[in-house]
C-alpha cells in the first residue's frame, strides 16, 4: 500500500451527526439544566411518593427522635448517640497515630536488606499477608474475646475499647505498611544512585532522601485509610462497648424508631466528607504538579 497522502478531490464530511449536536456547543447549558432537574426530580419523587415513603420518613427521618437520640434521655437511661460518637473519635485518633508509626516500622523492615533483619523480614511479610486477608470483624472477635480468655494478667483485663483499638491497629498496620512500601519504591532510582554516589549511608539515604519523598507521595492513600478507620471504629460495638452505632441501635430497640441510626450516620459524614474533599484536592494538586513537570 502506498504512503502517498489522499489526493482525492472531494472534501470529506466534517460535520457531526445531528443527534450528537444536541448535546454540544450552545445547547450544553440547557442540556445540563434539564439533566439535573430530571435527576433531582426523580429522587424527590421516589422519596415523597413511593408507597412506603411516609413510614420511612417517620421511622428514619423523624426530627423529634433524631434530637432525642442525639442527646440521650438520662431519666430513662437512653444513651446519647452524640456521646457514643466521642468514643469513635478518640479511638480513631489514638489508633491512627499508632498505625502510622508501626506501619512505617513494618515497611522499613520489609524494604531493608541487612542480613541481621532477615528473620524480621520474613515475619513482616507473613504478618502483612495474614492481616490483609482476615476480615477485620474476625480480628476484633479474636482479640476481644480471645485475649481475655487466655487469662494473661494485664493483657486479659482491658476494656473493649482497648481491644478494639488493638484489633484495628493490627489490621490497618498491614495495609498501611504496604502503602508506605509502595511510596518508598516510587522514589526514582536515579535519586538513590545520586545519594549513594555522595557516599551517604543506607540509613541516611532512607531518612533524608527516600522517606521525605515517599511520605509526601502516599498522603492521599493514607488519608483514605484514615477515613476508612473512622468508620471501622464502629466495630468495637461487637465487644460490648457503646459507641455511636450501638447507642443508636439500643435507642431503636427501645423506642422503635430508627432515626438514631440516621443521626449516627450524619455524625460520621460530618467527619468523613470534609476529609474526602480535602484528599481530593490534594490528589488534584499532585496530579497537576506531576503533569506540569512532564510537559
Amino acid at each position, binding site marked *: 500500500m502506498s504512503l502517498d497522502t489522499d489526493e482525492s478531490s472531494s472534501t470529506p464530511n466534517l460535520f457531526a451527526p445531528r443527534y450528537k449536536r444536541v448535546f454540544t456547543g450552545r445547547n450544553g447549558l440547557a442540556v445540563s439544566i434539564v439533566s439535573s432537574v430530571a435527576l433531582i426530580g426523580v429522587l424527590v419523587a421516589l422519596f415523597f411518593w413511593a408507597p412506603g415513603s411516609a413510614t420511612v420518613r417517620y421511622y428514619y427521618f423523624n426530627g423529634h427522635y433524631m434530637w432525642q437520640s442525639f442527646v440521650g434521655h438520662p431519666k430513662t437511661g437512653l444513651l446519647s448517640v452524640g456521646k457514643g460518637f466521642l468514643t469513635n473519635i478518640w479511638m480513631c485518633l489514638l489508633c491512627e497515630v499508632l498505625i502510622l508509626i508501626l506501619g512505617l516500622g513494618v515497611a522499613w523492615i520489609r524494604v531493608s536488606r541487612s542480613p541481621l533483619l532477615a528473620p524480621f523480614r520474613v515475619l513482616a511479610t507473613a504478618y502483612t499477608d495474614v492481616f490483609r486477608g482476615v476480615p477485620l470483624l474476625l480480628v476484633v472477635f479474636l482479640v476481644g474475646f480471645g485475649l*481475655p480468655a487466655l487469662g494473661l494478667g494485664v493483657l486479659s483485663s482491658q476494656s473493649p475499647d482497648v481491644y478494639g483499638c488493638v484489633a484495628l491497629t493490627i489490621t490497618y498496620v498491614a495495609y498501611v505498611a504496604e502503602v508506605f512500601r509502595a511510596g518508598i519504591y516510587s522514589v526514582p532510582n536515579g535519586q538513590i544512585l545520586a545519594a549513594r554516589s555522595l557516599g551517604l549511608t543506607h540509613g541516611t539515604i532512607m531518612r533524608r532522601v527516600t522517606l521525605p519523598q515517599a511520605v509526601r507521595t502516599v498522603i492521599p492513600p493514607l488519608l483514605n485509610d484514615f477515613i476508612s478507620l473512622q468508620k471501622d471504629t464502629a466495630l468495637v460495638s461487637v465487644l*460490648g462497648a*457503646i459507641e455511636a452505632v*450501638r447507642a443508636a441501635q*439500643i435507642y431503636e430497640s427501645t423506642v422503635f424508631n430508627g432515626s438514631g441510626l440516621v443521626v449516627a450516620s450524619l455524625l460520621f459524614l460530618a467527619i468523613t466528607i470534609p476529609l474526602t474533599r480535602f484528599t481530593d484536592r490534594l490528589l488534584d494538586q499532585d496530579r497537576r504538579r506531576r503533569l506540569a513537570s512532564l510537559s
Partner: protein
Amino acid sequence: MRTFRLVLATLMGATSLVAISLTSSIAASASSATALATCKTTINNQEFTKGKLTVGTDNPVYTPWFVNNKPSNGKGFESALTYAIAGELGVSKSNVVWVYEPFDNSYTPGPKKFDFDINEISYTAQRAEAVTFSESYYDVTQSIVALKGSVVAKEHTPAELKTYLYGDQIGTTGLAYIYDHIHPTQQTRVYSTLDEAVLALQTKQINAIVVDTPDGQYMATSEVENAKKQADGVQVGQFPSTGEHYGLLFTKGNPLVGCVNVAISALRANGTLAALTAKWLDIYTSVPVIKP
C-alpha cells in the same frame, strides 16, 4: 287442678331453666368448638402461604424452648406448643413450615414473612405499636446468671447489685430490666447476641447477665463453661414478676391472631398448656427470688 298446673308450670320453668343453662354451657363449649371449627376454614385465607402454617424463630435456638436447634422435631416448650396450636387449627404436622427470623428483626414494623414468630418475645406496649401479639402463652420473670463462686453469687443485696458490671443482648427485656430496675453504676456492655454475652461472662469481662428465668436456668447449667468444659454458671436468683409475658408475634393487624388466640384458649382449657409448661419449664420454680 290449679295446683297441678302450678306444679307443671314450675316443672316446665325449672326444666327449661336447666335446659337453657345446659344448652348455654354446651353452647359455650360448642361455641369455642364452633369457633375452632370455623377457624379451620377461615385460616386458609389468612395464612402467609395457603395451606401451610409458616412459623418464624431464631437460629440458634436453645433448650428448654427447642431441642438440638431443630424446631421441627416437636421437642422443647415452644416447638411442642406450636405443633399443639397447629393441631387445634387442623393443620397437620407436615404442613408446619419453619423460617429464620433473627430476634432483633422480629418486632420491627413492616410486613413479616411468616404467620407468627415464636421466640420468647415479651409483650411490651412499645413493641405492640409495631406488631400484633397473641395472648400470653407464658408468664415470665427475669433472673441473674453469674460464674460459680463469684462474688455476685454470694453478695446480691440491691445495693451490691448496683456495683456489678453487667452484659446483655441488645433489645432484650433483660437489658431493659437492668436499665429500669437495677441502675448499675458501671455502663452495661451491650452485645449483638446472647452467645457473646455468655463468652464475655466466661472470660470474666463482665460479672453477670440478666435473662429470662428458664433461659437463665439452661445457661447456668449447660452453656457457661470453664476451660475444662465443666458447667461453671450459677443462676443466682430470679427477680419478682413485673407482669411480663410471652406472646406469639404477628404482622400488625394480621387477622390470623384471632384464630390463634382461640387455639391457645382451647389448649389452656383442656389442660395441654399446663402439661407442656410442667414438662419443659418446671425447674424454674425452685430458683430463689431476690430483689433488684
